């Protein structure tokens, strides 16, 4: 493996990892707090990208794309809240909630995917990069400025998320709801408000990933489905309900994937990843980084 190839694998691994981490942390957050698995999570990435595109079209392309992204985050938080209200809330207390919400979130996925198609049509779109141009370091390593932003900003967002969850009272209350709902209620925490907030937060994180992605590749309504499956593998590796484990796993899987593709090719890589996932589930279903698993319903 030449140094050149090595650095390019490393870079693509870093970009992938960053996007997976944003996506998977939201997925994991929803699982931890609400105890449900949101299959509509991936499509939110596409929604985020398209909404950003729409905003940037409306306010004019002379404005920096970052403003559109900021507005998109607001929209995504509201959309997340609406999804929680429509897809999850009616089924609290249902003894089959895990199963029913698998179905409702799948239906949500279908709805949003086709909704995008209906609203924005099938024509492929692309977002402008956050920063134009390329960065070259000692001629060793060349990457676009946009990729560099992704690599730098994503960890910052995740660190922010980590601090929010661990050091703010609202973040702590979200974690508390995930660990023991009854005790949280008895402490005066409004559980349904926490749920809505969690969903909104997860949607925003995913939307950001979508906006980043939309600056890298062409957008389409199903652009979130493959990353969702990857995020799922990440969440399993990191341990369900373990945010720091999830983030670590995202970077591990991102690199692993980049190197596997390089060494064994595009075709065998997904099979191997799924095989790993099954083995992790069988032998260590608390994940590689988890110490204790949430007891499932």
């Amino acid at each position: 493996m030449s140094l050149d190839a090595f650095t390019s694998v490393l870079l693509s691994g870093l970009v992938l990892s960053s996007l997976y981490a944003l996506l998977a942390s939201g997925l994991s957050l929803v699982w931890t707090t609400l105890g449900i698995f949101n299959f509509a999570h991936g499509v939110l990435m596409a929604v985020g990208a398209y909404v950003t595109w729409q905003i940037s079209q409306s306010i004019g392309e002379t404005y920096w794309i970052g403003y559109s992204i900021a507005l998109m985050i607001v929209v995504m938080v509201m959309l997340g809240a609406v999804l929680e209200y429509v897809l999850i809330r009616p089924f609290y207390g249902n003894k089959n909630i895990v199963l029913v919400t698998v179905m409702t979130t799948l239906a949500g996925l279908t709805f949003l995917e086709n909704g995008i198609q209906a609203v924005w049509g099938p024509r492929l779109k692309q977002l402008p990069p956050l920063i134009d141009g390329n960065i070259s370091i000692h001629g060793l390593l060349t990457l676009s400025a946009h990729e560099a932003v992704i690599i730098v900003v994503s960890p910052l967002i995740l660190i922010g998320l980590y601090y929010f969850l661990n050091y703010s009272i609202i973040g702590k209350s979200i974690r508390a709801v995930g660990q023991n709902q009854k005790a949280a209620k008895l402490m005066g925490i409004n559980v349904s408000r926490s749920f809505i907030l969690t969903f909104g937060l997860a949607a925003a994180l995913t939307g950001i990933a979508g906006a980043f992605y939309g600056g890298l590749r062409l957008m389409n309504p199903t652009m979130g489905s493959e990353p969702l499956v990857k995020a799922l593998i990440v969440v399993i590796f990191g341990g369900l309900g373990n945010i720091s484990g999830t983030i670590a796993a995202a970077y591990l899987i991102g690199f692993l994937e980049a190197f596997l593709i390089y060494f064994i090719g595009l075709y065998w890589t997904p099979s191997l990843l799924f095989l790993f996932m099954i083995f992790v589930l069988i032998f260590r279903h608390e994940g590689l980084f988890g110490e204790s698993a949430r007891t499932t319903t």
Partner: protein
Amino acid sequence: MSRIKTQATVATICFALLCFLPLFVTDSYIRHLMILAFIFAVVACSWDISLGYAGLFNFGHVAFFGIGVYTTGVLARNYGFDPWLALPAAGVMAGISAIPIAIPVLRLKGIYVVLVTFAFSQLCLQLVLSQSWLTGGSGGLVRIPPLTLFDYNFARDGKFAYYYVALVLLVFTVIALTRFVKTPFGRGILALRDNPDYAAARGINQAAIRVTVLVVSAIPAGLAGGLYCLYFRISAPEVFSFGTATLVLSMLLVGGTSTIYGPVAAAFCIVLFSEYLENFPDLNVYKHLVIAAVIIAILRLAPDGLAGLAKRLTMRLIKDN
């Protein structure tokens, strides 16, 4: 009239109607829709055994269907097997592949079962995609030989013969599964789902039940896959996709779990409803939006599915009379 008798009567009438339908309906498009409904009804009601009756969040059931599609496709297309042999082989193969799936499922519960079975179906998809020498990769296998009987070609009779093959498969599946869940062993499956600790205290071996359940539910799904392949004469990787899983799962949940006949009824409703929407070309992009919204609405308004709704309605009728 007791509920069971009513059910039996309704089922017999439906069966008789379906038997004679092709004699009156010569439109091959309607026959085609019925064949689709029959095949998906088999997949949906066999899924009900693991998901509804056993309460296993098995999300990989469609993989059994896909395994059936590819077993028949590979045997009939690549190895020149007689389609009549390749069809049962699909059931056998699906049944056998249920055993490796059962192993992780034995140790896990809840959402972990969803995830591991989901991973299994994704693994199947990836294997199919990567082994193009055998499976045709993302292009799939095409020009698979159809069913024939002596010189009679099933593919050239306006969907007449396939209609009956699919109907027979559905009727046998429904009868076999209904009987299966009524046996004492079948009662044990429900007992284990309702109360695992108590079930263990009454001699029920969880591992044995789970393996049996997965194998029994996989066989009809595999057969349905085999028939699907011989009918469409292709094996395409889409059968493992999210879309197929969503479609069948919606039949199951809209129909109502642990009823068998509920998912069958829902399969008809959903296939026909989604085809009916095709009549409105303007609606085309909105078709899936409408279906998704209807599914959410039904889950919300009738948490036990159509079967639960039907039961409540008959109860009310009985009370009123």
